[in-house]
């Protein structure tokens, strides 16, 4: 073996030298050219995404307040505090409500996508109605549901009208109920996205498959389970990831509606309050890093489970 390598070595070493004399202004330019197109987009990406991420790691080991010129290195104190201070880590459990809500939402979306991928009267109308809430401004949705959940408001009126007056609660005021209400509003907002993704995936399954299956006597349920579900595995896997990372980073709906009051505090609200209200940028950075690491781990696990199903556009 070694004699072969030795024999082969001289010509290999010689080749890189060969093109060099032919290097002209043109090839130098062609090396620089792509970077001329990339300098702004990549520059901004580094400036606004990676530099902050790197800075955040640095801040997370200090007690910086975000304003003063000096800060003290505090080692891993901030990280220790996140996992030992019940006020800080308890908010992670609030994500559980949104996670359950997200799975419920996926189930509903899959049901409606399946129903609407077969022949249905007014299919376009139903599709539009299910999807439209996803496009609405988050603050507007917050206001819509603040009004909806008002004591004596829409929901209470409907419940009383149906003879279910006993179910009336302080929907946003009672710490035992508030997270259910907010998760409900989140489902209302995001169902359309899941639905439209599932519908698109189902419609890309070739129609002949259903025909062949029904000739073979397959029931609707069997068609769903053996054709549709495997056919849209990729998008279901992706939705799982979006559900998990989404429920860990819930922000807008609770921030706009309750500001995190009455037990509806989420980890991200806590993080931005820590940074911008209480001026503890060091601690807030550590919290953001913890969240970032969790999201990356979840994504990595998903890629291990479904290796061919990357979270990207294709």
């Amino acid at each position, binding site marked *: 073996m070694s004699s072969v390598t030795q024999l082969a070595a001289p010509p290999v070493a010689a080749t890189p030298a060969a093109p060099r004399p032919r290097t002209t202004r043109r090839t130098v330019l062609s090396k620089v050219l792509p970077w001329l197109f990339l300098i702004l987009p990549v520059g901004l*990406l580094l400036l606004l995404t990676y530099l*902050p991420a790197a800075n955040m790691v640095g*801040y997370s080991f200090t007690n910086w307040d975000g304003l003063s010129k000096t800060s003290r290195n505090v080692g891993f104190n901030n990280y220790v505090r996140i996992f030992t201070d019940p006020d800080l880590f308890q908010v992670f459990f609030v994500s559980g409500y949104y996670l359950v809500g997200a799975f419920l939402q996926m189930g509903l979306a899959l049901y409606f996508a399946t129903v609407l991928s077969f022949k249905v009267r007014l299919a376009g109308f139903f599709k539009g109605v299910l999807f439209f809430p996803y496009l609405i401004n988050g*603050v507007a949705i*917050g206001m819509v549901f603040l009004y909806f959940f008002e004591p004596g408001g829409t929901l209470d009126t*409907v419940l009383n009208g149906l003879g279910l007056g006993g179910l009336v609660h302080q929907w946003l005021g009672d710490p035992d109920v508030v997270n259910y209400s907010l998760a409900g509003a989140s489902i209302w907002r995001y169902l359309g996205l899941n639905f439209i993704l599932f519908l698109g995936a189902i419609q890309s399954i070739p129609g002949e498959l259903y025909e062949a299956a029904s000739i073979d006597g397959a029931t609707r349920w069997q068609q769903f389970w053996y054709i549709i579900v495997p056919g849209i595995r990729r998008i279901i896997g992706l939705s799982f990831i979006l559900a998990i990372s989404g429920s860990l980073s819930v922000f807008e709906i609770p921030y706009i509606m309750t500001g995190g009051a009455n037990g509806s505090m989420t980890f991200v609200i806590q993080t931005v309050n820590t940074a911008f209200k209480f001026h503890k940028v060091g601690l807030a950075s550590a919290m953001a890093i913890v969240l970032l690491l969790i999201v990356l781990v979840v994504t990595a696990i998903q890629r291990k489970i479904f290796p061919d199903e990357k979270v990207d556009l294709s």
Partner: protein
Amino acid sequence: MTLRALLTPGKYLTLILAVLFTFVPLVVIVIASLKTASEFATTGPFTPPGNWLNLANYATAFTQGGMVLGFVNTALIMAASLVGTILLGTMAAYAIDRFEFRGRGVVMALFLIATLIPSVTTQVATFQIVNAMGLYNTRGAAILLFMGTDIVSIYIFIQYMSTISKSLDEAAMLDGANRWTIYWRIILPLLRPAIATAVIIKGIAMYNEFYIPFLYMPDKDLAVLSTSLFNFKGPFGAQWEVISAGTVLVILPTLVIFLVLQKQIYAGMTSGATK
């Protein structure tokens, strides 16, 4: 057959329930927005307004609520950010799709990994940078962040560009066109459908963005629609009829755009949301 006969009405029942769940919270807001203050205080949420054409609350929202300013600021920021994001995105996509160069894989990975970073939390550190650039409390903050952190459109452009035949580039190069001319005169015009998709989905996202303007532009004169509606919570505290009018004003443009561009929005969302 009997199972199917049972299922069909069930199917429509669930669909109608879904329509009710979607419509009721919105319809009651429209009803509330058309009532006078005393009417609102004395009637239930489903009682129709006495005068369906009572637009007084809308006038209040527009003038006292600062929504005119909100519309102007939103439009200015969207116009600048969309132009920027399309130029930057198409240039990045052009470099990545049409050049073979060292570091191409790294650039792709940088864009891909960035999609995983939850952007609200990195604002803790991004804020320091934007502040150091002197952009705090200027429209420039939102414009820079909207066009500098948009990765979805780059993917849309790369995807579409890979369907444009490279023989066009080669033919132009033989005619002596340089790379910039090819990008500007050939690729950019051919990307029009992808640009339309990006404008729609990024436009909706920018219109709806709340936290960036809220954090970076607290100045009252810089309020966009999201933040001016959010600010209704204070001065209009319990005046639900005015808050409702403001809410309807924010939703209405979205509804119109949706009804007009339904097809493009569905297509854009399915390609853009799975970033």
